[in-house]
């Protein structure tokens, strides 16, 4: 019996530009669009690709922490703002730190499985440029255990969490190869982002990317084992994707050739009050990957495209191990050897990932799904990777906190 009790499809994906430093149109002192603009742009971008938006039954909005960045709660209230046809229809806001988008995806799927909806509009959104990075770091630290960890934590709480992981990984598997793997991850992210006009790093002009990636960290101003190139940037952005049942597809007038099938997902929760069992690996991500492969009845080798949560380069390396592509401690070499490049064994984060595209936290899980759907539909324009006929699957792995909340989801081409 398949994991999902009915067929569910994803279609009509849309990503806004990821706005922040690096984009030519971004200026920290100039006014920028608010959260409502992003929700609307992404929502409309999605529903404009279907025939009958009035047949969308529900909305799900993934967002981490607009109540601090934008002083805005009750995000469901923006669902009817996307389009008047959504007036009085249900909408729910879900939150799981940087995995809020991932939770929005599974919530949308669950809503259809519950048989209370046939079509769900799933939106992820985050606005982060409203404050300077050091204050944003305060807000984002809420993804950790505030009363247990924050006081003794670093000014840049999350970068430091992953800096500690990088340090542990370096100590166990070698500093040079880890650093080179991280630098190569940065190179791949920017090279991919330069092909994606919506990516925050689309305008990146650094000539020697590897040298930039190898920059020595400065613990006085930032972290012990991470430089700024190891980190995803502060981003404003939103993404939207429509999920539908077979009946739902008919209702919105979408042909099967324009959709991909959701084969399986896993949603795994770790305890936020306990430290990671092993700093050198993403245990929760690994469990979520194993579960989703098992539920989909496939192996890593069946994937043609992968999207992992590279909030930091070291997280990217560990995520590739957690997804079963590289052995434990072999991720850095795997990346260094080019195996995660768009032309590699497993094209990973082909649109730039969190480091290249940007990381509007609450949008990221949805953005990853939008990009995998585009890849499987062969509609990824300049950043299209080869989807092998015998490997028709794509996977996303989306993480919240320090490997605390994880969603994995596998998609398949329909024919």
């Amino acid at each position, binding site marked *: 019996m398949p994991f999902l009790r009915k067929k569910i499809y994803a279609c009509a994906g849309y990503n806004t530009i990821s706005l922040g430093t690096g984009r030519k149109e971004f200026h920290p002192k100039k006014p920028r669009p608010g959260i409502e603009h992003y929700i609307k742009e992404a929502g409309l971008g999605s529903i404009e690709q279907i025939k009958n938006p009035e047949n969308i039954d529900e909305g799900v909005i993934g967002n981490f922490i607009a109540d601090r960045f934008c002083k805005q709660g009750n995000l469901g209230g923006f669902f009817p703002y996307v389009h008047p046809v959504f007036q009085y229809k249900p909408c729910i806001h879900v939150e799981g730190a940087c995995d809020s988008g991932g939770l929005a995806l599974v919530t949308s799927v669950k809503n259809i499985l519950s048989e209370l909806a046939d079509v769900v509009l799933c939106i992820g959104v985050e606005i982060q440029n409203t404050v300077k990075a050091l204050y944003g770091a305060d807000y984002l*630290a809420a993804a950790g255990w505030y009363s247990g960890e924050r006081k003794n934590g*670093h*000014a840049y709480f999350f970068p430091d969490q992953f800096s500690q992981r990088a340090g542990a990984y370096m100590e166990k598997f070698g500093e040079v190869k880890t650093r080179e793997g991280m630098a190569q991850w940065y190179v791949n992210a920017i090279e991919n982002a330069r092909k994606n006009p919506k990516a925050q790093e689309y305008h990146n002009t650094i000539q020697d990317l590897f040298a930039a990636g190898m920059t020595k960290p400065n613990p006085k*101003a*930032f972290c012990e084992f991470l430089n700024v190139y190891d980190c995803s940037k502060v981003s404003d952005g939103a993404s939207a994707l429509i999920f539908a049942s077979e009946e739902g597809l008919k209702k919105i007038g979408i042909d099967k050739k324009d959709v991909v099938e959701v084969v399986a997902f896993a949603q795994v929760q770790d305890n936020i009050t306990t430290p990671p069992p092993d700093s050198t690996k993403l245990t929760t991500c690994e469990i979520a990957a194993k579960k989703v492969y098992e539920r989909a009845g496939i192996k890593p080798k069946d994937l043609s495209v992968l999207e992992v949560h590279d909030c930091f380069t070291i997280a990217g390396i560990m995520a590739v191990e957690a997804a079963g592509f590289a052995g434990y401690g072999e991720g850095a070499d795997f990346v260094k050897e080019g195996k995660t490049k768009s032309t590699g064994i497993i094209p990973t984060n082909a649109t730039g990932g969190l480091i290249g595209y940007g990381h509007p936290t609450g949008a990221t899980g949805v953005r990853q799904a939008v990009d995998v759907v585009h890849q499987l539909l062969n509609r990824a324009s300049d950043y299209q990777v080869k989807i092998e006929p015998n490997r028709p699957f794509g996977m996303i792995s989306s993480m919240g906190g320090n490997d605390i909340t994880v969603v994995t989801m596998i998609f398949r081409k329909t024919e």
Partner: protein
Amino acid sequence: MNLDERLRDVSVIGAAGKMGSGIAVLIGQEMMRLKFESPDRIYRLNLIDVSEKGLDGLRDYIKAQFVRFAEKSIVSLRTTYKDCPDLVENAEIVDAYVNDAMKLLNFGTDPFLSTNSHLVFEAIVENEKIKVKTYKLLKKLVSKEALFLTNTSSIPIGYLDEKSGLDGRLIGYHFYNPPVVQKLVEVIGSSQTKEELKNVASELGKKLRKILVPANDISGFIGNGHFMRDGLFALDEVMRLKGKFKLPGAISIMNRVSQDFLLRPMGIFQLIDYVGVDVFQCILRVMRTHLGDTTLKHKLIDKMMKNGVKGGQYPDGSQKDGFLKYDKNRPVGIYDLRKGEYVPIDDDWKKKMDKNLGPLPEGFVPWKALLGDSKKEDKLKNHFSSLKKMNSMGAELALSYLKKTKEIAENLVKQKVATSADDVNAVLTNGFYWLYGPINEYI
């Protein structure tokens, strides 16, 4: 009394001015560092100015600077405040730092506030009489142990010391604008200056992480000694060129030549506006008086002042109009003295000027791009050797300016204003952000 003890009570006179406010921020930050080491000690920074309104602005400026400093230092400040359980988020720690730092400050118009100070910074108007009057008053208020540091950029220290009766308790400590950012401090001891004060000045420079360059006690010292004559040369060139290009055209030409052809951070007339036409005139007067050099004046400067066109900055730091008109600190017009109005720098104007000057050397890289370039030296060499091969008015004017500026700098060494060519070059590169010292092999 060592420097740390002196830093327990410090006064800044003229604190609301451009320089005084920057000095106040630097000393306030240093006091906070000491306060963290000895939390039970009382530290006081007395910020004194004649203008109540200025003091209000000063409070805002200092607070904003403390916020910036705390934000920049947040990684270490979290450790500093680790024993305060209520301070958890970065924002709370930044607020705590700013509140603690503001508590050290006394603001007021009454010089009496300085009574307990053992270190007094003076950054009031560049006027001998007012400075002497102020020192005479302060001398009566503070203890005999107190040491004075003046930010004068042109008045001889020995003169001020003697007229004020400070008996060697005065040293020149010339910060560059803005003191919070600029690394350079010109240090000028007079023949009377006490050894103890020289040591305090040197130790303080290290604490503030400044580059200290010694200058001899000759009016204008190195910085203005060079800048005034450099500016006068440009003004003379303008007078020479105005017959052919009219006054705004000539100003535009010399501004462009000094900025782009000579690769300086801004054109000479933009720099004069930045410093203030009024300040430029005032410094010329001081130098003329003390050096007895009647050539240190210019009728164009005097005419500008007569027309009330003074340059300088608004309290928010934005540029006032002077030789050039500014929009968001960018030059958009050039003053026409005859008409008393500005000629817009539009595309037509730029084309006309470019046509007059001729092209920039091939492979031209602007000042900003060269600043952090590891191959800066080679690129500068190429730039100037290309200029020499070019047969254009721009190249000709630039080379003659380069030659003049070198001559001015060499004279400063000859006249013993500076001890060495390196010192002159250090002032121009660190205080004026030139990419190269005026004493160079390019010409």
